[in-house]
């Protein structure tokens, strides 16, 4: 059963690092089953925002609710409703792909068959017994997607999901984004590939220096960015 209403809700979110503000006064609403494209130049605050929503970074001020859970009140419960694909794969590099997913399945109470199915889905069945340290960056990204498939979270946070992937991987991510939304999950994607993401996602938010610079339909975001550049 997915959360009704807003799956992600952030109010006046700010985060400072020393005397620099990475995020300043961001408000966010994402409904279950809908998707948001986060765009902006390097250092605009996209990754900081995703890490705060995942409960991995505390905001300096502001409030966040994920799937109805207030992060400041029940961080652990909120974290379990979120899956994050970050720049790093979040794998144990000296374990095999199968062992990494076995760890996840045991903690989630899922079965080994689920892990095998997830590995097959991301195209890594033949590399199940290979140590992740020997994987390319793209393969590690695919393994991270396998973990998300097992987690089945309410909120999916993706930081550059197409990064390091081959064309087949691009199509795979496109498919998954549609599936996540169809399953009633809220999806937030931070990427520089705004043309591609704009065609796939519902809403768009352009960040500039940590503050919202533009809000609208995701398909209009590339145009907004080019206008901002000129």
């Amino acid at each position, binding site marked *: 059963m997915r959360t009704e209403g807003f799956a992600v809700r952030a109010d006046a979110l700010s985060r400072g690092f020393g005397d620099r503000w990475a995020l300043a006064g961001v408000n966010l609403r994402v409904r279950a089953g809908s998707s948001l494209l986060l765009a902006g130049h390097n250092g605009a605050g996209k990754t900081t925002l995703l890490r705060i929503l*995942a*409960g*991995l970074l*505390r905001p300096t001020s502001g409030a966040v609710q994920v799937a109805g859970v207030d992060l400041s009140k029940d*961080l*652990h419960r909120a*974290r*379990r409703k*979120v*899956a*994050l694909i*970050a720049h*790093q*794969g*979040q*794998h*144990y*590099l*000296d*374990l095999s792909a199968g*062992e990494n997913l076995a*760890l*996840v399945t*045991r*903690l*989630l109470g899922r079965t080994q068959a689920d892990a095998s199915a997830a590995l097959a889905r991301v195209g890594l069945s033949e590399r199940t017994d290979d*140590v*992740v340290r020997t994987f390319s960056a793209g393969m*590690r990204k695919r393994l991270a997607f396998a*973990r998300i498939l097992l*987690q089945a979270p309410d909120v999916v946070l993706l930081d550059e999901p197409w990064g390091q992937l081959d064309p087949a991987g691009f199509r795979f991510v496109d498919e998954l984004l549609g599936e996540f939304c169809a399953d009633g999950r809220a999806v937030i994607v931070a990427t520089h590939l705004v043309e591609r993401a704009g065609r796939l996602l519902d809403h768009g938010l352009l960040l500039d220096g940590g503050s919202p610079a533009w809000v609208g339909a995701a398909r209009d975001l590339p145009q907004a960015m080019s206008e901002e550049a000129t």
Partner: protein
Amino acid sequence: MSRPMLRQTWTVLRKDLLLSWRGRARIVAMLSFAVVTLMLFSFAVGPNADALARHAGGYLWLALLLSSVLSLGQSFQLELEDSALEGLTLLPVDPRALFFGKAIANAAQLMVLGVALVPLSLVLFGTTVEGSWLGLVGFLALGTAGLAAPGTLYSAMTSRAKGSDVMLPLLLFPLVVPVLLAATKGSSLSLQGDPMSQAKSWATILLCFDLVYWSLCPVLFGRVLDD
């Protein structure tokens, strides 16, 4: 401890032991470091056989303590590589289960190291076990448990700090002085004999410190992870 928490603890413990086995070059390095440390004590004291034999328990525990810094520090570096710990915290795992899994794995590694160092200590320091082998193993188990619990907590605290290699021993060593003292006394009594039956008192002290560390550290570990 609830059944789900037991299952999570076992899962984390298995993962940590598997990672240690895969990185056994690090274990060999730690063992080599401990052996070199024992030999240095032997050289430093010189050919005074009586002093070497009398303080064998102390040298053994100092070698274990110094080597534990390598092992404890490494256990969290593996979690930070590729941000694996972040992935783990987004899964439904109780922070206390995470602590127990890691701390038991650390204690087991230190225990194995301790057992491996005993025969070498006997040879290097020219002593024998005149007391009780069982007692010696018991003090090794209680002592390594007393090092592993605060060591795991401090390793988590310092792993992301600048100069974590220096921070860990600076924080850990003062805290484990009572453990070191009781473990050294108990081990010495096991080696040299215990005519006054003092070993039981030292074991009780060690057990009390273990109980305090293993009760407090899991609670504090959750706070460390959140921050």
